[in-house]
């Protein structure tokens, strides 16, 4: 019985370890300037104020960066689902020669550091004319999200019985109709989770985004490059704002987290 309480105690400690830093940054983001610089600080917020957060949104370039981030993330989402889902479907439904080699290729892509991709691509993108565009950044982010999209959609389609599809064929659907009417509706929640995950990967990515942009910064790139010459309230509000969408997305896809990461085992 004592052991049970110990477990619970440790679990709660870990919950606090995760939540307290988030709580602290939220507190700072929602207080006024004097409280951000106050010393010593209390654990609890002194007074609620929108001063810091509105200061952050008032800085020139922040809205543009947010818009760029959303554009890049949306493109990444579309690209990775459009490229990844067909491949996932192929892996799930057809035993074809080269399937294992393909799986290996997909897994291997995760073993490469981002710097090795971002630096030559930056050089090439300048020549092709897509340097400093949302499209260029989205291409690199898709490269990061695609392996997940393929493996997740593959396990997703595996979970949908082939018999359903075959039944649709016997009832007069062709392959495409059967896919659209039978498989797709069943796969939709999982596909949505895959898409959201791709969105989060893109929203959070900073190294490639910084290297591949100059004026069209995404929010993380904008924050990173202005870190050194921006006041603390700006940084704290920016950090908090970066976290918020991610928290919501993780909450939405929490059921799929283990499919998303568990597949790394196979």
């Amino acid at each position: 019985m004592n052991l049970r309480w110990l477990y619970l105690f440790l679990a709660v400690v870990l919950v606090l370890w995760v939540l307290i830093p988030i709580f602290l940054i939220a507190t700072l983001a929602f207080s006024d300037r004097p409280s951000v610089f106050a010393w010593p600080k209390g654990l609890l917020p002194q007074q609620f104020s929108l001063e810091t957060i509105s200061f952050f949104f008032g800085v020139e370039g922040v809205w543009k960066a947010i818009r760029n981030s959303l554009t890049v993330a949306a493109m990444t989402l579309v690209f990775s689902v459009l490229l990844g889902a067909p491949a996932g479907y192929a892996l799930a439904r057809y035993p074809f020669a080269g399937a294992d080699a393909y799986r290996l290729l997909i897994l291997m892509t995760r073993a490469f550091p981002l710097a090795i991709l971002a630096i030559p691509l930056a050089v090439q993108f300048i020549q092709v004319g897509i340097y400093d565009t949302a499209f260029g950044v989205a291409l690199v982010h898709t490269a990061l999200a695609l392996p997940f999209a393929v493996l997740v959609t593959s396990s997703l389609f595996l979970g949908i019985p082939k018999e359903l599809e075959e039944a649709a064929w016997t009832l007069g659907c062709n392959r495409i109709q059967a896919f659209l009417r039978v498989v797709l509706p069943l796969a939709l929640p999982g596909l949505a989770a895959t898409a959201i995950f791709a969105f989060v990967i893109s929203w959070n990515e900073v190294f490639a985004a910084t290297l591949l942009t100059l004026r069209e910064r995404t929010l993380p790139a904008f924050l990173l490059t202005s870190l050194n010459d921006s006041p603390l309230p700006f940084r704290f509000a920016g950090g908090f704002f970066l976290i918020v969408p991610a928290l919501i997305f993780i909450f939405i896809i929490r059921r799929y987290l283990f499919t998303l990461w568990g597949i790394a085992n196979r």
Partner: protein
Amino acid sequence: MRSERYIPYVLILPSVLFLLFLFAWPLLEALLLSVRGSGGQWTLENFQRMAADLYFKDALKYTLLLTVVIVPLQVVMALGMAMLLGGISKGRDLFLYVWTIPLGISDLAAGIVWLAIFTERGYLNSFLQGIGVIQQPQLWLSYETPMMIFVAVVAAEVWRATAIVFVILVAGLQLIPKEYSEAAEVFGATPWQRFWKVTLPLLMPSLQVALILRTILALEVFAVVVALGGRNLPVLAGEAYYWYNAYQNPGVAAAYAVIILGISVVATILYLRLMRSKQEGAA
């Protein structure tokens, strides 16, 4: 239905082309970029410039040190969390959700969050003042105190990225049939023995994946360090960034990227070798 054999290839083709274009080709380009001079001739100049740079030794040292400290901490902690989760019945889903929240948090955001704690008028100093250890705010994140920046980076990385290891391990635990542990219990194994002799060996494949993934990610640590210490704690990925952005020298930047890749590959091979022999030894 004669054409059916071609269907899977048609389906994977777009992604294969995409990965060739955005993985294989840049990889080759990076290697070429690092061994070519500005005139296109073959040269080791980029690597020599890199090695002669003031920041190089520290960057290499701190990157390796960070990896060696962070990864084992995360694995031990995640393993503990995964075991803990098995011992909890009430509120399991809630714990699971909260513990995995950091999965959605970016490295830059994590760095900023811990900046709020370690900064001069931050929560750490406030706490230390509260318990009477210090009177005046201490400056932790300056170039004079690289060890404190190091500690802050470790805290931020453990806070942010332990969740990835945790999720991989929990997913791996779910694959292990309960019967093994139950059988061991029948034969009188203590919980401690069951963990070491049954669970851990069976968890080896997941541990391997988690170790490889986390090591590669730790070797390219970047935004957390920039947010907490700027260039006062140089790391390899940061140097690649400065050489590309500030010094406009893609060649040396590529040399740094190649070094990161080289260490990642060596680490991966080591894990595969060492853990395979261990698995065979256990079997």
